[in-house]
């Protein structure tokens, strides 16, 4: 019975691993639910803000803020939202791969890129890749706070205002459902014109202190809230991807244990048979 003990210890270690993956699956499932409700909670703010911005544009169609004007694109700033931790399937890699394809197109067109990374994985990946990372934020945790993003986003917005970059895009995972997350790229600045329309009726507001100041204030916050939304959504994606990945890992561990158990039983039976035939042979010889 040479291999029996080895196989038994292997079964034991796989069982331990599957316990961990099972636990991670359940933790991810409960965190996902929370992350989803957080995702829903961020929606009213952005919606209300879009409304007010829409009103402002309606009232001052002649005034164009820098964040509204399309420029010739020579340099693009990418805000890349990723997870802090691994073990979540291909979530980050899918996003990076898609982004790479887009970056290649830009490079062929002679457009340069700057990166702003959110999350450890993006920082690690684009650091190795050798991109120009102008700002970053890591360790946002399960409940990201907008305070931690303000500075990171401001670097980008300032660069845009100074004319260093001509467009800001965001790359994150869009939460479709628990099983599907789709890598998504969106243009943040200049603010796409669809965001400013769709008004049912409009009010003739009084602005304090002035419409331009209010608009200035609002636009920065609007971009921040979009980034925040993307971060929260990516968080929900991370948890659901992890849940699915860990479920697959637990299932695989179960299959592996079954297989090993069969091998173990066979080995044990072979040893017993051998012993019996030895005894019988011995008895016959006597």
């Amino acid at each position, binding site marked *: 019975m040479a*291999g029996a003990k080895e196989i038994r210890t292997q079964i034991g270690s796989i069982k331990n691993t599957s316990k961990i993956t099972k636990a991670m699956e359940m933790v991810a499932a409960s965190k996902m639910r929370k992350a989803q409700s957080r995702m829903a909670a961020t929606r009213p703010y952005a919606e209300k803000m879009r409304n007010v911005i829409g009103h402002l544009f309606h009232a001052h169609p002649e005034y164009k803020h820098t964040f509204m004007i399309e420029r010739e694109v020579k340099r693009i700033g990418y805000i890349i939202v990723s997870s802090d931790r691994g073990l979540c399937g291909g979530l980050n890699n899918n996003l990076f791969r898609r982004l790479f394809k887009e970056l290649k197109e830009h490079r062929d067109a002679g457009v340069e890129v700057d990166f702003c990374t959110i999350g450890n994985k993006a920082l690690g990946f684009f650091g190795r890749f050798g991109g120009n*990372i*102008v*700002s*970053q934020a890591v360790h946002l945790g399960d409940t990201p*706070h*907008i305070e931690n993003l303000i500075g990171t986003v401001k670097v980008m917005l300032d660069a845009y205002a100074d004319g260093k970059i001509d467009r800001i895009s965001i790359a994150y995972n869009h939460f479709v459902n628990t099983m599907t997350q789709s890598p998504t790229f969106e243009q943040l600045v200049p603010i796409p014109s669809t965001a400013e329309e769709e008004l049912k009726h409009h009010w003739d507001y009084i602005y304090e202190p002035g419409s331009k100041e209010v608009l200035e204030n609002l636009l920065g916050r609007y971009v921040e809230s979009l980034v925040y939304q993307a971060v929260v959504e990516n968080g929900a994606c991370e948890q659901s991807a992890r849940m699915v990945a860990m479920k697959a890992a637990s299932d695989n561990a179960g299959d592996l244990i079954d297989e090993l158990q069969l091998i173990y039983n066979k080995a044990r039976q072979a040893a017993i048979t051998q012993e019996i035939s030895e005894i019988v042979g011995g008895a016959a010889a006597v």
Partner: protein
Amino acid sequence: MAMTIHVDIVSAEGEIFSGLAEMVYAPAVMGEVGIAPRHTPLVTQLKPGEVRVDTGNSKEMQHFYVSGGILEIQPHVVTVLADTAIRAVDLDEAAAQEAKRRAEDAMSDRSAEFEYAKAQSELAEAVAQLRAIERIRKGKRS
């Protein structure tokens, strides 16, 4: 029943309050404003302070601390887009500098986290190889 106005207080991280009120007080930049139903449409910035909502039904007023934001008033709807973070020009600037510095640190100090990630992937590869070898050996033996 007295006239009421619908009040929504929302922040980027979630809804804070939603309901009817008889009167709302908010700290606008040009002085505190009190909003009664059918107030004229107004958009104003808020400074850090307290938003008070008088729900009218003899209960106490509800208080919400905001660290700034935007107040939007329509005749029957009041929306407070509250900031949860404390905002000021120099604070924002400091946060931006901090984010920049972190990025530069990470770029220059590749040895730390990136090396770790690389080592981790190499380790995973080695483990997988070992496991394959082990399995081949076992297959031969049985």
